[in-house]
């Protein structure tokens, strides 16, 4: 059994007055790829942001390698070794591709070198001098993933990395996730597309209305299709 890397217990989160997460519980083990599935508005992004310290008001427990992080500021959490690829990608318009890539500080040894990132995403090399937001949607997604691979963070939070992308690029991102898992990274992935999720993940959690309502092993996905369709309303 691998060690538990992330342990979320009774996580609550609020945006101002709105109470969004109502006691989220789940675990991610070292080296796993785990997804959060769920309908629009279920609270998947809020869960990711809460782990990263990007939601102002949160309560409960989020332990990363045994360290409680629920009260820490996001920059402290980053230095423990967690990095996020946000849903909106967060590419900076006033930075070129290289500057975007080099922006996140190194927090630990063991990240990918720029050359390795360029091998995974050759487009980023070709477009090194372009303004970040001039890239295509797929290239921006590669940049958003590539820049957190450099930092040495061992737990990567990827929020809908395939959303709105062409099938070839979805496949490329799938290959990337499998490659980084191979290298020992741990990934928490939010996906709407569970056909894609099934090709990369070990386990799936299903969220609804701000709580985790079910857990499904990837190997048992096929036999749970009906249930899953119900959960996701597809």
């Amino acid at each position, binding site marked *: 059994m691998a060690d538990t890397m992330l342990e979320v217990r009774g996580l609550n989160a609020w945006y101002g007055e709105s109470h969004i997460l109502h006691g989220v519980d789940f675990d991610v083990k070292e080296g796993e790829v785990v997804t959060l599935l769920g309908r629009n508005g279920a609270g998947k992004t809020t869960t990711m942001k809460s782990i*990263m*310290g*990007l939601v102002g008001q949160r309560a409960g427990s989020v332990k990363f390698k045994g360290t409680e992080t629920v009260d820490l*500021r*996001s*920059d402290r*959490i*980053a*230095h423990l070794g967690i*990095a*996020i690829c*946000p849903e909106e990608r*967060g590419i*900076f*318009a*006033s*930075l070129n591709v290289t*500057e*975007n890539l*080099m*922006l*996140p*500080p190194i*927090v630990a040894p063991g990240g990918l070198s720029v050359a390795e990132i360029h091998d995974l995403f050759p487009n980023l090399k070709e477009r090194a001098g372009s303004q970040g937001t001039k890239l295509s949607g797929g290239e921006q997604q590669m940049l958003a993933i590539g820049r*957190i691979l450099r*930092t040495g963070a061992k737990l990567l939070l990827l929020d809908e990395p395939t959303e709105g992308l062409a099938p070839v690029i979805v496949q490329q991102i799938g290959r990337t996730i499998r490659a980084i898992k191979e290298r020992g990274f741990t990934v928490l992935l939010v996906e709407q597309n569970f056909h894609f999720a099934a090709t990369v993940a070990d386990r799936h959690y299903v969220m609804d209305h701000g709580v985790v309502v079910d857990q499904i092993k990837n190997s048992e996905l096929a036999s749970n299709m009906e249930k899953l369709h119900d959960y996701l309303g597809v």
Partner: protein
Amino acid sequence: MLMVFGYNLGPILGQGVLGVVNGAFYALLSLGLAVIFGLLNIINFAHGALYMLGAVVAWFLLNYLGIGYWPSLFIAPVIVGAFGVLLERTMISKLYKLDHLYGLLLTFGIALIVEGLARNQFGSSGLPYSVPESLRGATRLGFMIMPTYRLWVVVASFVICITTWLVLEKTPIGATLRAATENAALVQSFGVNVPRLVMLTYGAGVALAALAGVMAAPVYSVNPNMGSDVIIVVFAVVVIGGMGSILGSILTGFGLGLLEGFTKFLYPEASGVVVFVLMIVVLLTRPAGLFGKAS
């Protein structure tokens, strides 16, 4: 019209060059304002008062400690910059989550207090600050003779502006600053200590204002009102250049100084308002400013 060329070109060029001296101060001050506005999202109304404070500190250093102009160019910005850091930590940082207006009111209040204290201490008449020995006299430029000190002001502030711009555009620290200006929360979640970055940026912007103040002391004399005299024009510079645009502030600062200078020659009565007329025209035709991006 040809008659203009019948004239000696000297006087108009002379006014232009004197305008550029004013423009050098506009550029230095609006540069700091632009950097602060970009990252902190506050309009730093205290900027003029802190510029004045730079000159006052230089005067104190000279008259009480015998520390001259050259060391003061470094020491006064450090002292005033540290004061800025203190202001940011204890007051301004409490307002980031609120509307711009609160930061504006707070810094306006700070400006009034600093200027009031200075007036109480020195009265409203200026304190003389003499030009450093090595920059006395005049330098012959092809078309005119210019006081050497003013030439130094133009060259030095140009170099400072370009250096600041290069740091912001070409270095990793500059990239981090630009990114934090766009999305501070995300930059912080990458592990950057954004509150500290903000604090140091405010301190640096204030230090730049104080540096301008020290450079201004021998030109305009040290006067409690020197900040409020210049700051309104500087705000117009920032509006014309485009809020938050660094290059815009620099070019507009020098450009408007030049424009004022030429106006002084062509139609002196208009020289005090030409900047504001231009500001109105720009606001009506390009509300984001000449170099600003429409949002």
